[in-house]
């Protein structure tokens, strides 16, 4: 009933663009908020890179703008460095990448791709965005509370996090909002995918992007509740002085820690955290795989190679991601049996990842490859995700992990997966679906000016980190020069930092392109890429309710270059190809 009432043009501005229930508006809200947080998280990192390259030297130009609790005379304090580190991780994962990949692309594209007029629960969808927004505001505000933001790493290991300053409480409450936002969103995606598919759109005809979002939703739905429980327990430890994660007999700063009964277990937090956070890694990567599959099929002008293998791999990957979490905890005193179990599951999970990567590369064979901007980002994803996945192998074998654990090797590894991996896929998706969202195309030259420097610089940043990791340089060091074993690779820190700042500059073409194209971009019709999936049969931008008439689906998602057909693409909703 509310849905009918929201049809038409008489909606006031705040109902149409702010408290909207339209999945496309919510998707764009998520995407824009997510992009802003990605940029903010990137800025935090660029500040950290100054301290790492030039430890103890005053930050030029902007150093004096920070308060005395962050920098003194432009020289960063270790507490501020630790805040930047913890919040960079938190913001990039929970406020940047996931909201953009799932909230943004999932919301905007998924209902269109399955031919639905909207999500199954539009109001829940709106609540989900505003919970995310509130969580983001709390996280941002925590920089300004006494003692600053959370500073115990994005992993918030107890007991350090329990005895930390009040920023940690804000972090936990912020996380509670983000978790509930994701839970509502994941239920919505699952119900929408199951219930609202257009006539003829069987599961075997779903675009791979929808499959990836569908599996991702199950991961969010099943992995986040344990973290919610863990966050509440840590909050109780902090505020009510319970001892879930606090063992007996703690002596902090030379004083017996009063007020805690003790008897808790510090490692319990790690189990609860990683039970979420490992599936979360797949929440970061699966939507990215979905995005680039769409773009590769469209820009090779041929069906994906091994669609079924892709689907089974992604389902298997989702399942396995729940039984590998303790490979983050090999060094917590794990015996041979338990570690053997987690090593075996970790090696098993590498197999479907290799299947997916190989299948996507083989999809190029026999194609007619168009090197459009989205395709360049999608193609770069393949080798970058390859490096990210391969560098996971030594970390997954706990004998090799003895040396590499908690070093820059880990940082290099997961950033290869998430930065030139997932974030490149997200850029690919923005360039690909921008015409659908706005009716205008982004500029191709600026797109390439964005791509090439970003591609080179990403490698300049993360490849040296693998070298530093092999040398044994620990992560989360405010001043690496303190250690003799970290000094020889210090020139690499300078190189990485300069590359990171240049990467910041390399995003200017994207920002300019994004805003310029909204107003001045070349106008397009409903299907500028000549693609087959359902979203391209809706007008650009699609009106409220999406489709002019309900689409009927006749075939699979990637019918490109079908022999005997006049056009090289045969849309899912088109009966005859003419």
């Amino acid at each position, binding site marked *: 009933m509310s849905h009918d009432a929201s049809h038409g043009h008489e909606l006031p501005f705040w109902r149409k663009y702010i408290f909207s229930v339209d999945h496309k508006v919510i998707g764009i809200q998520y995407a824009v908020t997510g992009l802003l947080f990605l940029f903010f998280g990137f800025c935090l990192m660029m500040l950290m890179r100054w301290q790492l390259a030039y430890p103890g030297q005053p930050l030029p130009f902007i150093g004096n703008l920070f308060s005395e609790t962050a920098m003194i005379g432009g020289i960063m304090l270790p507490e501020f460095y630790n805040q930047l580190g913890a919040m960079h991780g938190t913001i990039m994962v929970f406020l940047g990448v996931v909201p953009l990949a799932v909230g943004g692309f999932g919301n905007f594209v998924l209902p269109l791709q399955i031919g639905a007029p909207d999500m199954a629960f539009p109001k829940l969808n709106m609540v989900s965005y505003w919970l995310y927004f509130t969580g983001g505001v709390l996280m941002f505000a925590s920089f300004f509370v006494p003692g600053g933001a959370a500073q115990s790493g994005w992993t918030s290991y107890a007991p350090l996090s329990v005895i930390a300053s009040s920023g940690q409480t804000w972090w936990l409450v912020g996380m509670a909002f983000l978790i509930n936002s994701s839970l509502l969103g994941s239920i919505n995606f699952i119900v929408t995918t199951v219930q609202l598919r257009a006539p003829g759109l069987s599961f075997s005809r779903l675009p791979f992007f929808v499959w990836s979002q569908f599996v991702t939703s199950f991961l969010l739905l099943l992995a986040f509740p344990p973290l919610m429980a863990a966050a509440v327990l840590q909050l109780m430890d902090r505020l009510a002085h319970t001892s879930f994660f606090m063992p007996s007999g703690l002596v902090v700063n030379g004083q017996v820690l009063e007020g805690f009964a003790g008897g808790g277990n510090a490692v319990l937090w790690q189990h609860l955290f990683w039970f979420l956070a490992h599936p979360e890694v797949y929440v970061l990567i699966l939507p990215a795989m979905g995005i680039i599959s769409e773009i590769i099929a469209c820009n090779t002008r041929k069906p994906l190679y091994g669609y079924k293998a892709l689907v089974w791999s992604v389902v298997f990957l989702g399942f396995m991601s729940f039984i590998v979490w303790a490979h983050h905890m090999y060094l917590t005193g794990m015996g041979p049996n338990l570690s053997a179990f987690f090593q075996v599951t970790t090696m098993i999970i590498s197999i479907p990842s290799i299947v997916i990567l190989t299948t996507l590369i083989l999809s190029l*064979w026999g194609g007619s490859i168009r090197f459009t901007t989205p395709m360049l980002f999608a193609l770069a994803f393949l080798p970058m995700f390859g490096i990210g996945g391969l560098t996971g192998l030594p970390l997954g074998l706990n004998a090799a992990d003895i040396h590499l654990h908690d070093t820059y090797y880990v940082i290099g590894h997961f950033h290869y997966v998430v930065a030139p991996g997932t974030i490149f896929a997200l850029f690919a998706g923005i360039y690909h679906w921008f015409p659908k969202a706005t009716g205008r195309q982004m500029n191709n030259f600026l797109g390439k000016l964005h791509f090439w420097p970003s591609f080179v610089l990403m490698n300049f940043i993360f490849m040296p980190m693998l070298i530093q990791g092999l040398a044994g340089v*620990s992560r989360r060091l405010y001043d690496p020069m303190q250690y003799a074993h970290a000094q020889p690779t210090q020139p690499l820190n300078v190189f990485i930092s300069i590359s990171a700042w240049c990467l910041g500059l390399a995003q200017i073409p994207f920002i300019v392109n994004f805003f310029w194209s909204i107003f001045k971009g070349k106008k397009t019709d409903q299907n500028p890429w000549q693609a087959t999936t359902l979203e391209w049969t809706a007008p650009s931008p699609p009106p409220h309710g999406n489709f002019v008439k309900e689409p009927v689906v006749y075939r699979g998602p990637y019918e490109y270059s079908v022999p005997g057909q006049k056009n090289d693409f045969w849309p899912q909703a088109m009966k005859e190809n003419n």
Partner: protein
Amino acid sequence: MNNNYYGWGLPVDISTTGWRVDELIIVIHWVMAVLFVGWFSFLIYSLFRFRSRPGHKAEYHTKHFKTPTVLEVLVAITEVVLLTAFSFPIWHQYTQGLPPAEKALHVKVVAEQFAWNIHYPGPDRVFGKADPKLMSSTNPLGLDPSDPMGTDDVSTINQLHIPVGVPVIAELSSKDVIHSFFLPVMRVKQDAIPGQKISLWFEATKSGEFEIACAQLCGLGHYRMRGFFVVDEKDKFNAWMAEAAHT
């Protein structure tokens, strides 16, 4: 501190067990390199061969590749080998292969923000009692002065001295938060977790002055939680121990 031990690759290894870790790291990087070069060359070749150009059309039916299946089986076999021939036995040696207690030097390592307390049992080879309630700035280990077993104990801060060629059994614990005890030149890394006592062992093959690092974020001073790790010939070590016992 001598910087010849460290560079852009793995640090020098002076332990009896570290070579096995290094061997695994090197073998696995070769596997990774082969896979990556294979993928990448195929990718570049395909991009060139199937680039869009006038007169070139995409194929709807592409051939079925057998290579991926072969590749996946090979990767699976390689992973089984890496697990059973390398990782399982190495981990077993590290965690279960403790040398006989009477032959080893015993030491307790108690981590705190931001220092390593090292506790030797002294000539009687028995540790004196310790109690957290007795901990203070002058007695960081909380040693009980009334315990006769503790009178010959030796404790240091940030100074771990061990002799060459004698296996060391270290019992690791923490007073406050989680730390991680890292000896880069020994390929030893183990979390120190409050409320838990975790034993590990290592044996040095060469003398020299090295360092202990903290590998787990433990607070503001994490970056400077550095200790000295000194490996001496037996005589020199005994002399150091005798002197430390008197001061």
